[in-house]
């Protein structure tokens, strides 16, 4: 097997050699360029990052997100899918058999045709990088100064000088300035000399930084009607919102997670994102729970309040809708909610299916009821497919325009 030294042997007309290839790096270098190009494309179209909330891996205390990206390819002219292809099988195939099933005939499987550059790589980035690619200039709208319970935190700011300190913090520039000053005072010429007694050091100040305190109340419909798409959309929308706001307001943001079906429970963050589904739907239970939590732990005098509700909007009880409207109005009037975000997640195909089967439900009825609330702080949105998520988050967290809207 392999041994370490190089050799070169002539064998008649032929030749055998073995050299050191350690410096041969063209492949990885060109692949690095390819990754760079993939990253640029991802920046323009970050949908792949958005749907990747599941892939957080803690490493060195930093969270990493791995986004699968397609390999780039050169657009060489290719025949269309109308061409005839040749397949090889085991002899049992008959005319009309499906060989490669799937959307647009692009199935996987051993009998798939040659993959023309259809590979995937995983691009790694930190959560911070992902957030900066996805969202810009968002924040909690309508933030107000509320009460005395603001979170104080210290931040270290290197903005002053002292005569004492560690050598590693030596401020060379000002030390020289001091040396020149002393020299001039004594009337000496020549280059200034630094002496150990008169050095200047950089030092820090504990700066008190405040964030206005706010509580985000996430309410999630986990009833049986919330299917896979609805569940995933909720998780993605809520997760990125939480992350972004935590990054932007590292000190001031509290979170409350409520899951509801027929009844509502406050749950941990982890449970919120993992909760399965069951039960019927009583929307008002979530709003009641939310108010309960706000009244007991997050009084509006001390907290900015941001409730969000993720649901498919299929409520089964007309009376309950009216109740919800009353509860939301209470949130605005009694608890001075800064915003109420209502997210209706509906998959058009499912709606069509229900209609076609005459299944009795009233889609969007809660939404209709909530529309009657004419408060500019009531924001409603829908998610019909994953591309809708990012614009919705931007709508909720748009800071500039809200300042004008807040009455």
């Amino acid at each position, binding site marked *: 097997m*392999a*041994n370490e030294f190089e050799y070169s042997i002539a*064998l008649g*007309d*032929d*030749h*055998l*050699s*073995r*050299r050191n*290839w350690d410096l*041969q790096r*063209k*492949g*990885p*270098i*060109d*692949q*690095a*360029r*390819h990754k760079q*190009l993939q990253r640029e494309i991802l920046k323009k179209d970050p949908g792949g990052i958005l749907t990747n909330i599941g892939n957080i891996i803690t490493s060195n205390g930093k969270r990493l997100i791995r986004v699968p990206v397609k*390999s*780039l390819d*050169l*657009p*060489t*002219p*290719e*025949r*269309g*899918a*109308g*061409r*005839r*292809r*040749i*397949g*090889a*099988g085991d*002899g049992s*195939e008959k*005319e*009309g*058999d*499906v*060989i*490669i*099933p*799937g959307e*647009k*005939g692009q199935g996987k499987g051993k009998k798939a*045709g*040659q993959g023309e*550059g259809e*590979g995937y*790589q995983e691009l790694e980035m930190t959560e911070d990088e992902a957030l900066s690619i996805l969202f810009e200039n968002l924040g909690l709208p309508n933030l107000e100064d509320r009460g005395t319970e603001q979170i104080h935190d210290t931040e270290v700011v290197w903005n002053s000088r002292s005569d004492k300190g560690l050598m590693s913090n030596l401020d060379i520039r000002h030390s020289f300035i001091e040396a020149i000053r002393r020299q001039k005072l004594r009337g000496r010429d020549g280059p200034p000399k630094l002496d150990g007694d008169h050095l200047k050091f950089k030092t820090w100040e504990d700066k008190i930084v405040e964030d206005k305190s706010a509580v985000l109340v996430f309410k999630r419909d986990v009833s049986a009607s919330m299917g896979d798409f609805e569940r995933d959309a909720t998780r993605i929308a809520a997760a990125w919102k939480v992350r972004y706001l935590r990054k932007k307001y590292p000190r001031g943001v509290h979170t409350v997670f409520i899951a509801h079906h027929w009844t509502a429970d406050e749950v941990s963050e982890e449970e919120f994102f993992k909760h399965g589904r069951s039960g019927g739907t009583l929307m008002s239970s979530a709003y009641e729970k939310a108010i309960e939590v706000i009244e007991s732990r997050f009084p509006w005098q001390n907290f900015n309040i941001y409730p969000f509700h993720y649901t498919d909007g299929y409520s089964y009880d007309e009376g309950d809708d009216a109740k919800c409207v009353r509860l939301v109005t209470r949130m605005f009037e009694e608890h001075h909610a800064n915003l109420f975000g209502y997210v209706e997640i509906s998959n058009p*195909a499912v709606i069509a*299916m229900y209609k076609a*089967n005459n299944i009795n439900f009233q889609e969007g009825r809660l939404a209709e009821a909530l529309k009657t609330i004419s408060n500019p702080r009531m924001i409603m949105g829908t998610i019909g497919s994953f591309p809708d998520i990012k614009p919705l988050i931007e709508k909720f967290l748009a800071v500039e325009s809200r300042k004008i809207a807040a009455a």
Partner: protein
Amino acid sequence: MSLSEQTESQIIVDMKRIVTGFGLDPYPTHFELVPKEVIYEMAAYGIPGRMSHWIHGVRFDQFKSQGDYGLGKIFELVINTDPSYAFIQESNDLATNKLVIAHVLAHVDFFKHNASFQNSNTKMMDSAALQGDRLRKYAFEKGDLELEKILDAALSIEDCTDEKENPRKWISAQEYRDAQRQKFKDRQKQKLHPSSPYDDILELGEEKKPEIFERAPHPIDDEKNLLMFLAVHSPLEDWQKDVLTIVDNQAQYFRSQIKTKILNEGWASFWHIRALRAHDEEADNASSDFWRWAQLHCNVTAAHLDNINPYAMGLALWEDIDRKFRGEPLNGSRSEREYDFEGNEVDMSRFVGNPTYDIFRIRAEIPTDQAFLRNFLTPELVRRFNLFTMVNNGNDWVVESKDPKKIRDGLVEGMTNFGKPLLVIPEGGADYNLSGELYITHRQDGDRDGMDLKRMREFMPHLYRLWGKTVHLEGTFQEFEQKTVTGPWGFPFATHSLHSERLIISCSGESVNDISEKLVA
């Protein structure tokens, strides 16, 4: 020298002797034992010293993933030069290297003797290195990004050429234009003064006829080599034109190998089996069965067009030809009789000793896999490989036919023009609208032939980048259309249909947004 090196050298000497004894005559070959990353790299670039580009990085990464995960090992890589270079994985064990070395020598023999490689540049490695230097110089002078943009465009177009063209050494844009001019002059002369066998007598003593200026369309007829045409006629800077000629030169060097893949891999497999057997006999070693198994096992993933494994198919063809030549029945064949594609029984005696079935002659004279299959594929082989044709009904690929003739025709048809649509600049296409716009026509080959619309839309901006003015492409385009329909139980689902129509797509900018489409009446 350690035991293993000594043995590898010994194998090379032995195998060389054995294959020479069989009648093979390869170029002198330099074997290099290399780490597997180097093989992946050589496979990605095709030849050492080739220019940097991200597409090579993509291929390198793919080969590396396949190799590291055991999905497809590359045992060897042979460069078509004189002397030839062969890269072998240093981690191969001795048993494997016996097979690999014999395989390599047969490859080199094929490169030396096959018609498609006559005039191939035997010093291509040196040429590629020099070309790489030139490209690096341009990157340094004009910027990496500028070079990359031109390369992106040139590499996308590189296979738009005449499939019948033979390999040639690098020519400059100037030389190419001079050759085109000469062709034009000859045609003009032929039109104005049609030649006859008595021209040399008639012209004696006659005054020279005046040359008549005649406006001719540009180009004068179908121009198939898009890259060289652009190198001559586009408004690019000289260095950019040089880049095009380099890309064209490298592409045509590789095309010889692409169009003889089945021939070559089959040839190498045919001989490595025999060489191993001979080697074992010499060493009094009775393990030939292991080699046959190893041969079948290796290179499973090197799928060529459409699921045809060139090693297996090529080998089967060569074996079939050889045993017919020598009058031997096929082992384990279903019957003693053979039938041709028309269903007529074949008289086996006409193959015996027939020079058309002499494998050494075939190796020299058959220039392409298409010709190989057209002439030597049999219904029996089609059945043995369980082949079938398949078509897309909009949603799935379904089996269309198991008729051997249709399959053979489908195979050959799929290989025309390297499996790509044929794009030409027709007569007058370089001055479309009399405003210097470029018009390209897709020459459709059979009614199923069409271009992938999505992909061609990405292709057009590259053409625009090279031409500088609006570029048009007329042809048959195919794409999938999605519809939502209600199924038999009232459930909606998405379905697709395959849409095919004749369009002209025009591009007047460097992005996909600058593209417009128009139906052709």
